[in-house]
């Protein structure tokens, strides 16, 4: 059953087309990943689903209702740029944010109590957020997102800036929420998390949704065009290969994406001439590889340069 239905939405800021005719559906009870480089339009799309921005064209329905203040209550949203009132006490702050989502005071207090307990954070209620460590305030931010028990959870780049402990914790929470029948949508540019967690994906590039579907199907559609090679010896022969792209290369391991119908047998032969082969396996491409081949290497490099500057 479709819980978030996005249809032909467009959004421009001045001349910049941030989101350009995007459609996708999020199924209830699944984890949906929005992927794409920075500036691809993920955050703008997420803001429109949250009814923070309105689309210039197209429509968004949540649970069959057009995005509105009413649908905002069904969603728990954690933005990429996280923030809380620094000078407000943890307890008061959580109560305020949960009440804003339409929860009654009593129920809100119970829910906050439950989650603070689960995160071993009950002692913090009377503390001001400014006194908390970064990891602690991240936990408070999760609670603020989920305490009103919505059906849909939206996390924008949830793992960026998290310490490993909170990162694992968030992963567990997401899986737990899914097992409870909740729907999760998150955006990220970290592929390994998507591979581990997502049921469905939608890949954004330059404001357009360029690739979408069930993760398994998307990967299968690319075919088994990648070689997983483990070897012993001099790896320099890899540089002689033509018509391939090397991902994840190390001293005794390489993931080789075969392009333009280059013969896999030729690669094997060349490898055997130069090194001792422990493993030669034909596999589906990694999501990272799919990401690169779809978005285009040049585009990505330009992105990374921009970020580095």
């Amino acid at each position, binding site marked *: 059953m479709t819980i978030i239905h996005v249809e032909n939405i467009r959004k421009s*800021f*001045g001349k910049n087309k941030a989101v350009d005719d995007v459609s996708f559906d999020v199924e209830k009870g699944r984890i949906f990943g929005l992927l794409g480089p920075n500036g691809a339009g993920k955050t703008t799309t997420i*803001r429109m689903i*949250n*009814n*923070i*921005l309105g689309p210039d064209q197209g429509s968004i329905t949540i649970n069959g209702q057009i995005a509105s*203040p009413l649908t*905002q*209550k069904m*969603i728990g*949203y*954690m*933005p990429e*740029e*996280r*923030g*809380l*009132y*620094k*000078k*407000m006490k943890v307890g008061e702050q959580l109560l*305020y*944010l949960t*009440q*804003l*989502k*339409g929860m009654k005071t009593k129920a809100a207090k119970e829910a906050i109590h439950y989650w603070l307990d689960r995160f071993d954070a009950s002692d913090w209620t009377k503390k001001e957020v400014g006194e908390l460590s970064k990891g602690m305030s991240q936990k408070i931010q999760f609670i*603020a997102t989920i305490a009103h028990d919505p059906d849909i959870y939206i996390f924008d780049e949830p793992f960026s800036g998290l310490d490993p402990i909170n990162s694992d914790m968030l992963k567990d929470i997401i899986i737990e929420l899914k097992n409870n029948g909740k729907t999760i949508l998150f955006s990220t540019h970290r592929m390994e998390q998507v591979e581990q967690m997502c049921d469905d994906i939608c890949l954004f590039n330059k404001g357009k949704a360029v690739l979408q579907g069930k993760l398994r199907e998307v990967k299968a559609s690319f075919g088994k065009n990648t070689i997983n090679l483990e070897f012993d010896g001099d790896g320099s022969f890899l540089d002689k290969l033509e018509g391939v792209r090397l991902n994840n290369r190390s001293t005794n391991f390489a993931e080789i994406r075969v392009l333009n119908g280059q013969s896999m047998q030729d690669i094997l032969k060349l490898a055997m001439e130069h090194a001792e082969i422990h493993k030669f396996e034909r596999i589906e491409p990694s999501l990272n590889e799919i990401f690169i081949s779809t978005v285009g290497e040049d585009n990505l490099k330009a992105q990374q340069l921009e970020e580095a500057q």
Partner: protein
Amino acid sequence: MDFSKIFLVLKREYLTRAKSKSFILSTALTPIVLIAFFGFLAWIMTSDSESEKTVGIYDQTGVLVENLISLDSLRYSDVSYLPLDTVKAMVLRQDLDSYLLLEERHIETNENAELIYKESGGLAFNGSVRSDVREVIQEERLTRANVSDEVKQLFARRPGLDSRKLTEEGEAEDDKAGFMSGVGFVLGLLIFIGLFGYGAVLMRSVIEEKTNRIVEVITSSLKPIELLIGKVAGVCLLGFTQFTVWAVMYIGFSMAAVPVAGVLMQDQIAQATEGQDLEQVAAEAGFDPSSLEVLSIDPMIFVYFFLFFVLGFFMYASIFAAVGSAVDSEQDTQQFMPILMIPLIGAYVLNTRIMVEPDSTLAVVASMFPLTSPINMITRIATTDVPVWQIGASLALLVASFFGVMWVSAKIYRVGILMYGKKASFGDFAKWIKQS
């Protein structure tokens, strides 16, 4: 519009601020600081700074020196028996601060006597000696003209002027024009300070939400306009609270102070005149002890004060909020401040005129124009009888422009709060208004 959410925002905005130490301190301390300041001013103005200096009288007429010494025996001493050079030497040695040479010609002609000192005597000292000399010379002149004592007394008695106001009922009331124009100016000043001070509080609050990045979480729960209205109302209520506390303090203070001040002043006057006719002296000074009753202010003025403060605040605060939403830090607000400073400071400057000429055309226009009316109208209401239609029209204009300004500000606000890292300009404002 979801009023329960607006109320939640209002409650948070109000409570977090009202509970803060800085608010409690500023509420309690401001009146104390003000009272201390005015007390200090009053002390400076009344203190006898000139009494220390001494004047040697070198009197060649033989009739003036006694009268001068009887006016102030500490200041004046008779040095007529010494050679003039010795007197000069004494002044140079600082045994005397100054000397005064009095001759017949000073009585008979209009030639001025001269006070000669080594170090500057100070204006207050000079003025005081001048009036003493004037008094004794005048008395001597009257004596020489064989004027009777009665006429002398008539002469000494300067007539005063009381003003009374004629009302519809035909009864002349005690006119409190002087006091009320002061009250009017202070009320206008309070609104000026309130609009600026609380407007800045609101602006900082908007910037804080933006830089804390909490605003995106908030706007995923409610509409920006609801957030804006809640915040403006919360800060307005805060100002309301502070003004109410001050008003209560003022009323309590003046109720306690009027009798006390009355007694004190009567004491002072009695002392100063040493048994002279009290009423006469008071009348000369243009001061009547019973007039302290005018310190009581018509409660309707407070009603108008709150009305104009609230409406003016909602209008200005929404501009402050729009400016706050467009920047990433308080420093960046500089370029936008003129839109707020020019009308507010303009109204303040106008107020110094309106206070003394509350019925001039300038005053009427300024008290109608919505950007200045919150400050200027309250001053007029306190100072003069403003026709009801003018108050009504002023309020109507203010309400209308409040909606207009709020509408535009809200558009800037809803785009601005989600814009990061870009320094907005007036051009951006126009774009954002069109965009949303």
